[in-house]
């Protein structure tokens, strides 16, 4: 029961939370640009509209690949919120990303193939930091189990600030925020038309969008693990930290230009190595 409730909550509420957070994102971005901006529920309107449109595709197999991507990501998230092994969750997440890549390259379209390759580079850029964060949790709390990490005496961030920095850094990649949004070239900034999503329209784009929401909530959940401990008040702290980082990401998104993928790869690996590496060494020494 203890596992089922958070899992069901995630299953039902994650898309809603994700949508509303994206709505706020767009609103805040608009205000930063001195615009009025769309309504908060705009992302939901968008998905409803996409659902209603005629399904047209370049290659029919794309549908089932995207659906698999959605289902596998949801499954991974459920595993996480059910409190299972964190490292396993992250490894499985990397497999669901492969399905996204497939759904983009299967069309043989130039824009989406280029976007997909950039997406692969992005995956390569963020994976080490995320895996290292899991290792950090194991070193500080002695377990990979999400339940175990949550029930530790002190917040994990006390012992792993470096991992936190590396994680927040790659969260920018995961959230497809500028300067690291070369794969999709998000909403107002176009470069590769729509990058990896170029050949996704109507229902397929809706699948993609919903999966993004599930994934963001999952990543923010991992971020919350840094803060949460036995004390129920830590949950409040976790929510505050999440909102702050979210705001920070929006600020970065609105104030920086897109980076070339080479620089992104270099930068994220260097940050991972420095912040995560120093932290890891310190943790292993004091252990």
């Amino acid at each position, binding site marked *: 029961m203890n596992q089922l409730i958070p899992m069901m909550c995630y299953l039902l509420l994650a898309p809603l939370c994700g949508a509303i957070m994206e709505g706020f994102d767009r609103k805040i971005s608009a205000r930063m640009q001195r615009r009025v901006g769309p309504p908060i529920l705009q992302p939901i309107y968008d998905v409803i509209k996409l659902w209603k449109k005629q*399904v*047209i*595709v*370049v*290659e*029919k*197999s794309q*549908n*089932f*690949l995207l*659906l*698999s991507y959605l289902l*596998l990501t949801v*499954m991974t998230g459920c*595993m996480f919120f059910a409190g*299972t*092994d964190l*490292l*396993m969750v992250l*490894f*499985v997440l*990397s*497999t669901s990303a*492969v*399905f996204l*890549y*497939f759904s983009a*390259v*299967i*069309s*043989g*379209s*130039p*824009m*989406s*193939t280029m976007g*997909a*390759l950039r997406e*692969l*580079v992005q*995956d*390569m850029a963020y*994976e*080490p930091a995320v*895996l*290292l964060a899991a*290792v950090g949790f*194991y*070193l500080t709390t002695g377990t*990979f189990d999400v339940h175990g990490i949550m029930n530790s005496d002190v917040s994990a961030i006390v012992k792993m600030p470096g991992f936190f920095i590396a994680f927040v850094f790659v969260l920018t990649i995961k959230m497809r925020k500028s300067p690291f949004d070369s794969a999709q070239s998000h909403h107002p900034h176009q470069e590769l*038309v729509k990058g990896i999503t*170029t*050949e996704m329209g109507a229902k397929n784009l809706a699948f993609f969008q919903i999966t993004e929401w599930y994934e963001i909530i999952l990543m923010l959940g991992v971020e919350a693990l840094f803060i949460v401990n036995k004390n129920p008040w830590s949950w409040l702290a976790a929510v505050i930290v999440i909102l702050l980082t979210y705001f920070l990401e929006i600020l970065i998104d609105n104030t920086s230009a897109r980076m070339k993928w*080479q620089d992104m790869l270099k930068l994220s*690996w260097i940050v991972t*190595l420095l912040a995560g590496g120093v932290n*890891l*060494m310190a943790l*292993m020494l004091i*252990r």
Partner: protein
Amino acid sequence: MDMWEIPFLICFPLVVSVLMFCIRINKIRNAVAYVSAVIIMLMTGVLTVHWGMNGFAPAEFYVETELVDHFILGAEILLMLVVTFLSFKYNRPWVSLLSIVPTAVIAWLELEGPELDAISHIKVDHLSILMCIIIGIIGSLIVIYAVGYMHGYQHYHTEIPDRRYYFFMILFIFLGAMFGFVLSDSLLWIDLFWETTSVCSFLLIGYTQQEEAIHNSFRALWMNLLGGCALCVGIVYFALDQGTASLSVLVEQGTGQAPASVQVAIALIAFAALTKAAQLPFSKWLLGAMVAPTPSSALLHSATMVKAGIYVLFRLAPAMSGNMTGTMISFIGGFTFLSASIMAIAQSDGKKVLAMSTISNLGLMVACAGVGRPETIWAGCFLMIFHAVSKSLLFQDIGATENSLHSRDVEEMHGLLYRLPVLALFMFIGICGMFLAPFGMLISKWAALKASVDENNIILVFFICFGSATTSFYWTKWLGKLIAHTNRPPVRDITKKNEMISLSIHAVLMLALCILFPFLSSVYVEPLLMEMFSESNQVISNNVLYILIILICFFFAVPFLAYIYEKNVKTNKKLSYMNGINTGKNDAFMGSMGAEKELVLANLYFKDICGQRKLMNPSIAITTAVIIIMMCMIIASALGGGMI
């Protein structure tokens, strides 16, 4: 108890090899090769069952083997003569020194040296049976494949003299030597089989007798013989000091407070294993081995040669846990894992990608052995099993693809799933087996990462985290090439029936392994660890095991159900987006001068960042330095009497 299958498995391939050499009529020789391959496969099964009926207990045989010992010595001298002759013939006389010296030392030990303790020369346990199964099944399948492949190969490459009798002879000697290698417990026997595999691989690589082949084969030879020298010195030093030449005694004494000679012997043998497993700085021989016909690459890469190195390291693992040798081995392995996977990104030749990935995966296995804990050996065993099957599948598949497509470049495989459906499907399965989640590779990485954290091995943690990111990069982009949409016409599949049989069996094995591996773990691999470390340790807890089983079901069910569901959804086709100038077939666009331009999509290779030319030499320099320094430290501290 007596197991007649063991001498049979070692000697039968040798007898067949003589037959292969003598029979010059292709049809008859092919038939004999088929029958012998099937017999070897069956006998491996019989051996396993026979051993299992005796309760899966370790068993030892053949204490009195005076006659055979003389025969072994004779064979060793024969090998030395062959190497000496060939190195003089091809004008590289210094190579022969690497063979003459160790042989002389071993001969001295046997003829003039002190009386050694009586030991059982053959030992059967979980690890050796596992190796036998891999060699027996994969090796025999490769032989079956080779019959068809070599037929086409000689047909297309008319400039290469048809010496198939010779090729098959070496293949069978190879199999026999491998069986002998994994079943022996006597270090002297192991040495002979070791040298035999080195020489066989040398002969296979040089099969075409072209300039490049000869060059590469000698590189393989001297690197492996160098390892052989280290092995010899280790064995002789250990035997002189402790009065025995038994591998199990060596490992037993190596755990805990080890005498100096044992420490040095273990370090030297582990070093020898590095050369065999093609770890940096010795990786180049395996890359050069690509010039040989495909079956021999498949054999070298998947089931035999390189696995011999891994096997030795697994054997030594309990004695390497937590000491300096272990640190050296795990560093070299981890480093090779990362740097080879980075270099694989820059390769577009399919076979080279496979070669790089072999080296990189072997690196992970070596690192697992170097850490030397039950968890890592568990991971290492699964890596070995999955790697053997999927690499063999991939090599055979790429050979067959090359025959049909006349290219093995990954770029040429754009949309292969629509052009050569069967071969592309097999390739897909093989690649998925190398890195995707429901297959065992990923879970092994998971276990390896966990264990290296437990062992406080910081640097290995880094290697695994970064290496797994780069590994998925180069495999995923290859998979993407296979499924990308294309309008190019289908290619006529000229794969022979026997090649297809071998490929299908591999693919089925791959899928079966994926589904059965939680059971394999509890039934076979955990007893193996029990035997090796004599401590009961459940590597994956039941909790994780259940999740795994559910996951595996999901991974097969989700895409399947999604496919069924989406099949009936009504969709309309449209052209892919090319700024409105798509000419109507998604494969060309209208250029600004009004002419049709073909659309060519290429993957990212980063040749200027992670090319072999850029990274190989620095990697070799780093690893060489580490090996030299660490070896000196190990020997100095062992002889100085201090323990580190």
